[in-house]
Structures are given as C-alpha cells and as structure tokens.
C-alpha cells in the first residue's frame, strides 16, 4: 500500500525573513533580502552583494545550548537546525532534549558543503602542526551529515538520519527523498530540507566562474533579476528551509494542520550528454524530469496553475522557460503563472530548493502567488514564449490547486515536485 504524503509543519531561515510569519509577510510584499557585504568588497569579489539571514544571539540560544555554541562556527548547521526545529514545532511536536526516541520519524537534510568556516579554521591549525588543538567540534561540524546529525540528536529521531547533496537541486531532492520514504511505508514522518552556509568561502567559487552579477553593488535590492532583460547573473544567498512530511494517516490521527500534499515528483540527470555538461543542463533531461513528475502525480500538464521556477537570473532563464513550455506543451496566455523566489533572496545554493518549496507551499495554503520582483522588462527570449502577464510583478490573490517546483544543479541534475492544495474528502 502506498501512503499519501502531506506537509504538516514548515520552518525557514531566509535572507528576507527568519521564521514562517516574517518570511510570509516578506514574500507577499516582495521584500528583498539582498544586501551589500563589506567583507566581499574587502576580499575583492566582483559581486559584493548577497543574501544572508540575520539572527540574534538570543534567538540562537532558543535552539542551541551555550555549550553547543562554544567553538561552533557553522552558519549552515545553525540555519538548518533553526528551520528544522521550527518545522518540527509547527507540526505540533515538542522540542525537548529528553524526548523519547521515535523510530517512526527520520530526517533527510541536505547541504552542499558543511561548515566551510570551521573547516578553514581546522586547516590553518593542521598546517601549523597543531592537529592536537582542533578540539571536539572539527569532525561533527565539517562532516557533510553534520546538519542531520545535529537535528537527529536534538529531536530524538530514530528512523533514517542522513544528508543528501546534489548542488542546487539538494533541497528539492531532500523533500522528494523523504516523500518516497513515507509513501513506501519506511517511515511515518520525515523532517526534510536543506541548508547552505553564508560567507566568502562558499560564494567565492561562483564569483570566480563569473556567474554572479557584478553590476549591482550599488543597488543590492535590484541585483537579482530573474527573467528580466537586464538579468546579469545570480546573487549568492544562504539559509535553510524545512518541512515536516507525514503520512496522511498519521496527520489525520494527530489532527495536524495540513499545509498541502505532495502528489508526485521526479529526480533525474542529463548525464552530461547532449547539451548537458558539468555546469549546463541537458534540456532533454530537464523536460523529461517535468513530464515524468506530472505522470507520477497522475495529473495533466494543464492542471499546473503555478510554476515555482529555478530561474537564477543568469542567461539560462530563457532556456528554462523554453523547457517548461515544451514539457507542458503550453505557451503564451495558456502558460501557468511563473515566478522566482530568487528575485528576493538570491540563489541560496543547496538551500534554494527547500526555501523555495516552503514559499510554494505557503502560497498554495494561503491562496497567493508571490511576486517575482525586478522583472521590469521581460527578457525577449522569454516574451517570445509566454505572456509577460504570467509573471506576477505584485502579489496576486489566487487559489492555485497545483504548483510545480523544480530545481536544477551542477552535475546536470534535476528535480521536480508537484504540490497540491489539500482537500479533506
């Protein structure tokens, strides 16, 4: 028997809002979380703007003990734990370090790389022949699965506790992996999501390959322009998004709030064949990922009301829209609404898919389509395919039934999730 899988809790640590309430308010209004970063300027980055969540010491202490924060130097694990614990509490569970071990609940919490700052500290000590002075935090922070390990211990999770990693697809993939685990009866509940560190050491590589914008250091909020004619590269971001997934049976038993349902999805790769490379997508595989997700969800492409795109504000946006259009066989005025959360928070790398999915489900739950800001003049390549009115400049009050969310990542990897408004029947 296959279980239906619903979302019963969410948490988010985003550059434009920490916590579901603040984040919801920000995305409805189209508030940008992109700011000038003096540190990047000092280090002579070309792109000196970025999205970084703002967290007070007081807030950190609600999730970590002072001992846990001692010698702790990991923004990714910090964001991941806050978003994960918030999703857990939002689903109606208690955050108690002495809670009973729960074998029915696990976590798949992804990241690209773990605690790059702590890794840097460790490397300096090692090179100075001070291995013995690394302290106890080096391994647990720098192991890739650090974030899921921290979360598993904080919440007493006894099912699978692991971390996935697939570049910018990571967050979307984590949700689908957890979804499958519940669908096939391997777990009742899975805390899923992803996180990404802030700071120069995680963003530098993108600056080096010139995929970030250098044109907006003086006007950060206008910097990330998905689908716009003046789009000039992505703006790096950071943060975490999390969802509590649960079998419908378990959710109903607990009388939990249901934000939405996952009715299907697909994960694939273009194998770096055809137009695909280590850094560019194979269009055929992207289209197949979308069509297979639709098939898996047992819906028609006409059922999709909103596309929550990957849309990074690089020159690939046009190709992405073309792929969606071909996969759905829809264009012009018949194309679904399409928007990019990256317009407000930048590209949160391995956290992108999960934060953007949280935004997708919030819109579905509350009946709104958040604006895709900074898309003032739709890029001609995109305007040739879809009606510009399908890109909301301001929030639209609209009760969608189905939202498709996709993420694409380096390694030519793709993931697409189909979210549906939950109706009790």
């Amino acid at each position, binding site marked *: 028997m296959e279980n239906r899988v619903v979302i019963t809790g969410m948490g988010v640590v985003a550059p434009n809002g920490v916590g579901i309430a603040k984040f919801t308010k920000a995305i409805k209004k189209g508030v940008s979380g992109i700011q000038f970063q003096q540190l990047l300027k000092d280090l002579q980055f070309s792109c000196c703007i970025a999205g970084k969540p703002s967290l007070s010491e007081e807030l950190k202490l609600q999730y970590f003990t002072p*001992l846990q924060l001692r010698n702790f130097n990991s923004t990714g694990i910090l964001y991941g734990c806050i978003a994960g614990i918030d999703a857990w509490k939002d689903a109606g569970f208690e955050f108690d370090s002495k809670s009973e071990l729960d074998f029915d609940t696990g976590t798949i919490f992804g990241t690209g790389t773990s605690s790059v700052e702590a890794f840097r500290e460790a490397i300096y000590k090692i090179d100075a022949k001070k291995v*013995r002075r690394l302290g*106890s935090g080096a391994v647990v922070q720098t192991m890739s699965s650090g974030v899921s390990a921290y979360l598993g211990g904080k919440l007493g999770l006894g099912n699978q506790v692991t971390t996935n990693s697939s570049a910018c697809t990571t967050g979307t993939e984590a949700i689908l992996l957890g979804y499958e685990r519940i669908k096939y009866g391997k777990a009742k509940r899975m805390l899923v999501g992803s996180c990404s560190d802030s700071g120069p050491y995680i963003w530098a590589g993108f600056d080096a390959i010139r995929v970030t914008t250098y044109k907006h250091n003086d006007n950060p909020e206008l910097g990330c322009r998905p689908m716009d004619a003046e789009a000039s590269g992505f703006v790096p971001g950071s943060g975490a998004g999390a969802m509590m997934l649960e079998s419908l049976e378990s959710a109903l038993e607990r009388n939990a709030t249901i934000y939405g349902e996952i009715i299907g999805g697909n994960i694939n790769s273009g194998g770096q064949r055809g137009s695909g490379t280590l850094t560019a997508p194979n269009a055929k595989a992207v289209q197949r990922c979308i069509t297979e997700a639709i098939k898996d969800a047992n819906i028609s492409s006409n059922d999709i009301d909103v596309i929550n795109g990957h849309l990074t504000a690089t020159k690939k946006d046009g190709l992405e829209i073309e792929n969606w259009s071909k996969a759905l066989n829809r264009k012009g005025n018949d194309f679904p609404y399409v928007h990019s959360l990256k317009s407000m928070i930048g590209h949160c790398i391995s956290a992108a898919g999960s934060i953007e999915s949280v935004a997708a489900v919030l819109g579905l739950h509350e009946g709104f389509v958040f604006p895709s800001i900074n898309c003032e003049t739709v890029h001609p390549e995109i305007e040739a395919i879809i009606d510009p009115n399908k890109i909301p400049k301001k929030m639209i009050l609209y009760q969608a039934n189905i939202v498709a969310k996709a993420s694409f990542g380096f390694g030519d990897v793709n993931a697409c999730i189909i979210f549906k408004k939950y109706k009790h029947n």
Partner: protein
Amino acid sequence: MTQQELINKLKTIVKPYIQNEMAFQNMTPETDFINDLKINSANLVDVVLDIEDEFDIEMDTQSMEKMLDVKSAMDIINTKLKNI
C-alpha cells in the same frame, strides 16, 4: 598557587561543559569529570585545551588519558608547572 586556588581555576574552566550542577557546586579533588560532572567525553578534549591555554602548558597524550578526575588534573598541572 594554593591547591584551593587551583581547584577554583579548574572550576571556571570546566563550568561550560558540566551537565550536573550539584556535583559542580560541590567539586572536590575526588570529583570525576565524566561520571560526576557528566561532561561529554568528546568535550574532555576541549577541557584539556582550555587548561593548556590557562596555565600555558602542553599536555601530551599520556597525560590527557590520565586526566579523568579533578585530582589527576591537579597533579598533571602541578607537575607541568614545576617543570617549567
């Protein structure tokens, strides 16, 4: 430095790591770091590093292995300080 002063210094050092406040308040040379103060065994490494910083000494692996209670920590520190 009197032995009481040394214990007080050690108390300040282990404070962030202890998980049994009562045993900490009544800390004596006989107090065991793991069994009484409930210090996480991984954190014992951090206690050693903090002791090194405080007394400007270096502990070899053998000393670290012996340092399981307050008394052994005091002995090691006293020996190291004498040898400086």
